[in-house]
């Protein structure tokens, strides 16, 4: 018997190794067995290997994606940077276009609010705010476009100045901040009269001939009175600041901050319709509520525009696509004498 076992011991061992697991399997297949201590030890041994494997593979992965795969990243980054630069330029252009659109809409809105006037849109093409000389800006419209001397120049926020010298295709505008500029104004709230005179600095003007007894406080809005024969009535000029009223003398003194930022002008409107001085200077009733638009309804409509100007309508010309130039009757250029507040010292 033992001899037989010894003879077939290999075969028997193999048979046991083969059949024992099968028996175990069929015996325990239907219920999950608990892990033995030996099993847990084996898993404990396998765990660091798996962790090491994970560490190695993730390291290779990091190396690959962090270095090797970035071989052409520099060229890609350059190309993307170039595209980004182009997009940035486009974006800047769009932002400029948007800002310009906002400004033009404001000008257009202003022009539509006063249909009795004719406006000519113009772009500022030169600035000469020389403290030693005149405070001028140059616009791209001239005599060929119907611009004449002494025509008021405005933007949506208020008065810019008046046309000082006219060339065929351009014109110089004397800003309200020039020392030679004087605009007849009223306090919008109390209708008190005064003159706004330039000081040579683009951000400040001074108040002239404001009687001491007049009702005026700091922060009051000054609007054109229409009595100087240059500016139509009701256009914002600036705000009263630093009001000084002494206990003696005829006048009170103040500084005026222009309603328009004169150093940031880009587009302006030239009012090409003649100013009816008698009509403009008619005294209206005090406005109940302050605001630049409050003056507009007080204006007496002038004669309706004739000819092609009538077709052009109230909208500002020169900005809107297809807008027509105002070819109205030749405008009588008011002489400096007809505008008491205006004088030029060369």
């Amino acid at each position, binding site marked *: 018997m033992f001899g037989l076992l010894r003879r077939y011991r290999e075969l028997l061992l193999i048979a046991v*190794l*083969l059949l024992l697991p*099968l028996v175990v399997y069929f015996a325990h297949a239907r219920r999950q067995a608990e*892990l033995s201590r030996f099993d847990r030890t084996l*898993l404990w041994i*396998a765990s660091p*290997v798996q962790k090491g494997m*994970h560490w190695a*593979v993730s390291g290779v*992965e990091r190396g690959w994606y962090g270095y090797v795969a970035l071989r052409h990243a520099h060229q890609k980054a350059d190309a993307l940077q170039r595209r980004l630069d182009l997009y940035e330029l486009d974006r800047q252009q769009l932002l400029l276009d948007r800002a310009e659109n906002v400004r033009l809409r404001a000008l257009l809105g202003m022009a539509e609010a006063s249909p009795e006037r004719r406006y000519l849109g113009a772009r500022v093409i030169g600035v000469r705010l020389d403290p030693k000389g005149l405070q001028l800006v140059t616009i791209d419209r001239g005599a060929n476009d119907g611009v004449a001397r002494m025509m008021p120049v405005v933007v949506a926020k208020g008065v810019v100045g008046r046309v000082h010298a006219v060339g065929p295709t351009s014109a110089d505008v004397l800003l309200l901040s020039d020392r030679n500029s004087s605009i007849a104004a009223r306090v919008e709230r109390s209708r008190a009269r005064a003159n706004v005179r330039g000081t040579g600095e683009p951000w400040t003007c001074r108040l002239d001939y404001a009687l001491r007894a007049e009702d005026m406080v700091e922060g009051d809005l000054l609007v054109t009175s229409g009595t100087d024969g240059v500016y139509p009535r009701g256009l914002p000029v600036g705000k009263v600041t630093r009001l000084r009223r002494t206990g003696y003398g005829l006048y009170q003194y103040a500084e005026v901050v222009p309603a328009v930022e004169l150093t940031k002008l880009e587009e302006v409107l030239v009012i090409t319709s003649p100013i009816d001085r008698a009509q403009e200077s008619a005294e209206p009733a005090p406005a109940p509520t302050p605001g630049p638009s409050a003056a507009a309804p007080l204006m007496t409509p002038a004669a309706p525009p004739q000819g092609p100007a009538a077709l052009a309508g109230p909208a500002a010309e020169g900005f809107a696509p297809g807008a027509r130039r105002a070819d109205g009757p030749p405008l009588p250029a008011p002489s400096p004498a007809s505008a008491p507040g205006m004088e030029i010292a060369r």
Partner: protein
Amino acid sequence: MRPLVAFFFALLLASVQAGLLRYVGGGAFSVSLVLPCVVYLGLSAGNVEGALGSFTIGYLLDLLAGTPKGLMTFLAVAAFLFCRAVSGAVEVRSRTAFAVLSGVCTLLVGLGALFLTRLVSTPDAAPPGHLAWRLLVEAVLTALVAPLIRAAMRKIDGFFTREEAGLLR
């Protein structure tokens, strides 16, 4: 000594396999790095040490794969015997033949596991038959990597086998 070495090498391979499949495929396909060890034992080891080595490797597979105890152990020993029978009938020395045999063994072990599991499972829990195509993919992939494992096993064998001086090979 050889079964123990085979066991630890298989443990290393099983861990590598688990780590690799996490990154490669993420479980969409599987590969058996351990079964070529059994094939190698079937071709080059003795009867007893080969059977013992296969038994331990099968035990390890049971443990790591979470299959019921005994299933992979039985199949590993059966695969060992199959390889033994094949090597007695045909010459399996080249890398290609080793790869083919590894692929066939993997497929047979897979099908055997499927069959045995269906025998003891309720109809609801029985593995569906269409898993067979995944077994085929596994067999092909195993055949592709089998030569590498064969080379590694031969290298390890070299540490424990003394060259006999003057013997022509």
